[in-house]
């Protein structure tokens, strides 16, 4: 079963990468960029009985490893 996990910085947590990208886009002549935040997309192919089971496993994976819940949020999407 294929799934995607999106890991993003929590609101208010400084995102130096996003800031640098926004600034670079500006100097490349792209105006009207108000904000940029960089996150991770982790694509996982796993065996699971069904969607529900997969979602359960995936959130366990996020809590244990994929996301640093002190500063990051995660979202799960089973395809």
């Amino acid at each position: 079963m294929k799934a995607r996990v999106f890991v993003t910085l929590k609101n208010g947590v400084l995102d130096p990468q996003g800031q640098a990208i926004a600034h670079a886009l500006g100097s490349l002549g792209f105006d009207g960029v108000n904000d940029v935040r960089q996150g991770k997309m982790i694509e996982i192919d796993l065996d699971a009985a069904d969607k529900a089971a997969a979602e359960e496993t995936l959130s366990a994976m996020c809590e244990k490893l994929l996301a640093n819940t002190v500063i990051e949020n995660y979202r799960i999407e089973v395809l």
Partner: protein
Amino acid sequence: MSVKEPEVNQSLAADHGLKPDEYQRILDLLGRTPSFTELGIFSAMWNEHCSYKSSKIHLRTLPTTGPQVICGPGENAGVVDIGDGQAVVFKMESHNHPSYIEPYQGAATGVGGILRDVFTMGARPIAAMNALSFGAPEHPKTRSLVSGVVSGIGGYGNCFGVPTVGGEVRFHRAYNGNCLVNAFAAGLADADKIFYSAASGVGMPVVYLGAKTGRDGVGGATMASAEFDETLEEKRPTVQVGDPFTEKRLLEACLELMASGAVISIQDMGAAGLTCSAVEMGDKGSLGVELDLDAVPCREEAMTAYEMMLSESQERMLMVLRPEKEAEAKAIFDKWDLDFAIVGHTIAEDRFLVRHGGEVKADLPLKALSGTAPEYDRPWEPTPAAAVLADVPEIDVAEALKALIASPNLCSRRWVWEQYDNTVMADTVIRPGSDAAVVRVHGTEKGLAFTSDVTPRYCKANPVEGGKQAVAEAYRNLSATGAKPLATTDNLNFGNPEKPEIMGQFVGCIQGIGEACRALDMPIVSGNVSLYNETDGKAILPTPTIGAVGLLDSLDHVIPMAPRDGDILVLIGQSNGHLGQSALLAEMFGREDGDAPPVDLRAEAKAGELVRGFKAEGLISAAHDLSDGGLAVAATEMALASGTGVEIAADADLGDAAWFFGEDQGRYLLACLAGSVDRMMAAAQAAQTSLRRVGSVGGDAITLGGATVPLAEIRDLHEGGFARMMGER
């Protein structure tokens, strides 16, 4: 927009960590109830971190002066003369709690903070070290803390571009709930171009430079008073994230600004950045400060005055600039794409005036903010004398050596230092893995040596001797590389000072450190105190980390650690076979008993001078100090460094355990040609210091009396130990 602020009272003050008597002190001082923002300001200024209220009276006893000292404690970092119009600027600071919460960012921002302390003084950072203490290797949290902390330190320092050349790593169950991350940085500056924090001149612009302000680190207390805040999730205290790229630009911009002559005074923004830095500048300059928070560059929406004054956002500086230089200054900020804003100005009255959204948010007597900060002489009990050491069982020397050399506490730290760029700036002469690291003074033939030491086992058993030993070992590490010890910084990590026995450890260690720094002429020029390192009432081992700096007038004086094949090995210093609190007992038998080894400071000084003297006369080819694991481990480390075996004879009087693994202080193992021994003997006698021939260099095995282990086997155990502990092999 103005959020409804909570009512200020006794209990809100308590939420801010202010004790009832401290809150009363505020009421008396103001003759009124403080505003919410004012309460925040007091809590920031009067917490342990800023005010040193529990430690001040004891820190005052430390030696801080000497002909070499240009600026002692009190500024962002200490400044020490190294001749030829140059100075070394250094300090060590802890980031323990943040690193335990979020190892990568906690350690990274710790490095960022100490680098800022150094370049705020006008010095370009040239070396960094990190002293790390973790829980037991088998504790479930340890591995992730180690990898997070180490990659965080590397991630920040490597990007910033400072060579990380030394440090310590230790493991002990006492750190299971509180790891220690002590970061050291040193920089180089012209002795007559040091910048200080004291503001001067009335009506001078106060300029904010660097990253934008967010809610980073704000809010333990605001959380507690959540009722005033609908959007809790948004206000939630967040971990500070480091941005080494901004720090690097800040460094370059600050040094350019200083060169341009625009800077009157400068202060970095650390904890409670805006509050502490503004008050410090005014206080030191006996001026008032008026801030207009509407001008502060903010990263987040709708930040309140309270939040801006308490924010711990990183990579920010506050400066007082010469108005006539404003255009020049602005050009430099723009060149480096850094935010900059005039957020206030200096005023004549003794007043700290903070405006926001057309309201006065704080109006306080500035001097009193720091001047009347509470100061405690906390009750303390001296640590009881350690019980005499129970008998030590017979040991198999070969097995003992293998066990020690492979143990997490004594194996090679290569796994750690290879994650740090230790050669950037192309001046690293002695890299990590030796006694002290040596960095060339750029463009000269001189060198600076750096080391970081402490043996918490000793400090626990005997704080006074343990305090002395930490300084003595630093002195030895510097001397063993041929450097003349110059000065010291200390990072005092302890448990809860409100417990008399913990306070007793603190007082004892300071006494020992003070005595040693006096006797060895290594004044303390900067430092940091971290208290309350406790979890569930369990305190860490007393860990007063000593960072020390030495000077080499010429790189020709550098003493390597690797002997030559065919060299003779001589031991300098008295051996009594002291096994109390030794690594042998701890690692082999899980025993931490007996007293710490006594430190004879006069003998230490003599031994160090002899070693430097031998080098000057060209008598020795290598040197290494004896510390954890004694003679056996020191000899083995020299063999590993040279790739050649060593042989050490057994001792007639002392048993194998005592002779090979005893940890008597004041000792070095030196390598020399047979022809040099007599002259060295004579010099040692003249200095009433014991010096004896103990072995030789050659072959491909470590031979200790009757025991022999192939060097290849030892190397694998030593080099692989750390990765094995991390579960990587």
